[in-house]
């Protein structure tokens, strides 16, 4: 170690961030504008959901909240950018850990295609072209991925301050959209098909079937995806022993509130039939023009979705490259992926690879059918349910010796994560059965007799198992020979009340 650098004295500026920045990063990582644009129509379109979409938005949040508790506790034990990969490896063994890491990377690659598609579509909407050709949208989408990858490689990410501004603009825009839409519905000024909101929309029993509920939640877990990163960011507070996780909690209420209010407004204004039958993939953009009755104001919503997609792209590429880096450093992936570019101090190789694979996936999927991109969201839901579920179990297993030491440990470190894991496992299994029927997919296509989301989701998981076995056959005892570990009791003893 060079003179002058003491451990624990890492210089002038620590990485800790303030409360407001913590909330902002949590909300921005989830990208509410983009998430709504990508999935609102799909959720409403699920047979049996319709006007009950608001309750789906609330229901999907519950397993996410429970799993966030495991993120909080596991990150406390092992702050590692491999997240699920590192934690599951410690708690449940290298094999499962590897598959968990693989699922994260695959989910990120899948979502890149949807991000690119939304970015492409909305850019054309912005310049006033409502029905661009698929080739044009795909070309812009590919440029979008390339540009965002380049930005991450040379390390010019948005800083917390810029994000505060962008996010505020995004949330204010969505709020104005919701308020104007609702005012026009109540004033009788909305187009035919509009309906006044009713409390019945929030009645879970009103949803037709368990299939409708799980299909809806499978699509909607995606809108909260990314929020978990908040609990792993160090928050600088006056009393850091009591308040970490506070930003995560506030950010989630901002999210739930935003999703519910925008969903209610969109359904009320456009009517469930319009949302469900929309095939443009850009419900929010189309509705925005209608709600404001002016292209100029409608464009503000489009800009909000675009900035949201760009932010989401960064918060997808960065953690994926870091997961790959973490896996490579643990000898679970080729060492090349663990290299850090000495000039830009970023995992440049892993980042470029992520960008290239995303482009290949995006173009390939678009060549098959544009509807595939909607099916990919359901496949993404399967991936998220899989690795979040795994993380929930890993938390209780890792901390098993501490669970019965206090009621707080039992509920926050044991019951909550396992309950979240069980919910996601149930959704995963039920969805696998439902999605085996091609009729339950957006494209309606049949692949090998199954719906495409199931083939994509399970196909990637199986591919992961094959690659993991191949890697194991190739040796790498440093990784595969690792022993199971348990949590250090001190982690719980010094812990704040409540958790995340």
């Amino acid at each position, binding site marked *: *170690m*060079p*003179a*002058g*650098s003491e451990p624990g004295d*890492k*210089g*002038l*500026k*620590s*990485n800790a*961030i303030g409360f407001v*920045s913590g909330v902002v*990063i949590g909300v*921005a*990582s989830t990208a509410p504008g983009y998430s709504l644009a990508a999935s609102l129509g799909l959720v409403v379109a699920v047979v049996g959901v319709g006007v009950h979409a608001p309750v789906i938005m609330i229901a999907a949040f519950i397993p996410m909240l429970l799993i966030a508790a495991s993120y909080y506790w596991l*990150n406390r034990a092992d*702050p*590692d*950018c*491999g*997240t699920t990969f590192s934690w599951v490896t410690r708690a449940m063994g290298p094999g499962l850990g590897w598959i968990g890491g693989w699922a994260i990377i695959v989910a990120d690659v899948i979502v890149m295609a949807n991000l690119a598609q939304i970015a492409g579509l909305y850019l054309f909407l912005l310049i006033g072209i409502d029905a661009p050709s698929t080739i044009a949208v795909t070309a812009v989408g590919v440029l979008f991925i390339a540009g965002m990858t380049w930005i991450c490689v*040379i*390390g*010019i*990410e*948005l*800083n*917390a301050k810029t*994000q505060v501004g962008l996010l505020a603009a995004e949330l204010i825009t969505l709020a104005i959209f919701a308020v104007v839409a609702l005012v026009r519905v109540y004033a009788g000024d909305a187009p035919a098909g509009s309906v006044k909101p009713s409390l019945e929309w929030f009645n879970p029993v009103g949803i037709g079937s368990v299939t409708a509920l799980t299909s809806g939640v499978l699509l909607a877990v995606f809108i909260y995806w990314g929020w*978990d*990163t908040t609990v*792993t*960011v160090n928050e600088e507070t006056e009393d850091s022993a009591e308040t970490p996780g506070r930003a995560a909690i506030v950010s989630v209420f901002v999210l739930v509130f935003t999703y519910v209010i925008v969903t209610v407004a969109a359904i009320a204004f456009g009517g469930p039939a319009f949302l469900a039958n929309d095939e443009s993939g850009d419900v929010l953009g189309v509705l925005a023009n209608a709600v404001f009755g002016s292209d100029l104001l409608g464009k503000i919503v489009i800009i909000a979705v675009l900035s949201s997609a760009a932010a989401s792209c*960064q*918060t997808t*590429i*960065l*953690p994926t490259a*870091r997961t790959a*880096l*973490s896996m490579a*450093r643990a000898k679970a992936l080729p060492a090349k992926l*663990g290299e*850090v570019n*000495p*000039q*830009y*101090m*970023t*995992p440049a190789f892993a980042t470029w690879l992520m960008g290239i694979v995303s482009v290949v996936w995006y173009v390939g999927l678009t060549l098959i059918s544009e509807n595939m991109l909607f099916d990919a969201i359901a496949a993404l839901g399967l991936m998220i349910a899989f690795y979040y579920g795994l993380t929930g179990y890993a938390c209780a297993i890792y901390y098993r010796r501490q669970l019965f030491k206090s009621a707080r440990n039992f509920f926050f470190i044991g019951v909550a994560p396992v309950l979240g894991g069980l919910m996601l496992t149930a959704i995963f299994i039920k969805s696998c059965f439902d999605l085996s029927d091609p009729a339950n997919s957006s494209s309606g296509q049949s692949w090998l007799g199954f719906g495409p989301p199931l083939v994509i989701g399970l196909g990637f998981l199986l591919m992961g198992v094959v690659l993991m076995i191949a890697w194991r056959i190739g040796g790498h005892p440093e990784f595969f020979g690792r022993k199971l570990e348990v949590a250090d009791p001190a982690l719980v003893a010094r812990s704040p009340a409540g958790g995340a």
Partner: protein
Amino acid sequence: MPNKIITGYDGSDGGKVALEEAIKLSNEIGGDVTVLFAYEKVVVGGESHDLDEAVEAIGERVLADAVEIGRAAGAELTTEYIEGPAAQTLATVAEREAARYIVVGGSGEAPLKAWVLGSTANKLLALAPCPVVVVRAQ
């Protein structure tokens, strides 16, 4: 009290000319050189622990190289691995050490990033508490 000279070194050619100039200057005016390696963590995108560790390893290697370069030129250098944006940390350390000069390369450190966000040398013009010597790589 000996003069203090602060320089940043990242292992690049542009950084090396600055380091050599700083050593030369210290020999001429009599003084000590402090070499900084600055790294700004990325707050977005969640946990970055492994990446930070990897960067720290690079930083320590680069600083060890700097010490070697100094030794070859007959100078004992002080090094410091520091978190924060390069220009800001150089300015802050210069202030803390009541430095006589800050010596930086005119190019070398992340050229593409500098092209988008401005170079360290440029930013120092607004931040530095002491004269800044900018050395252009030949």
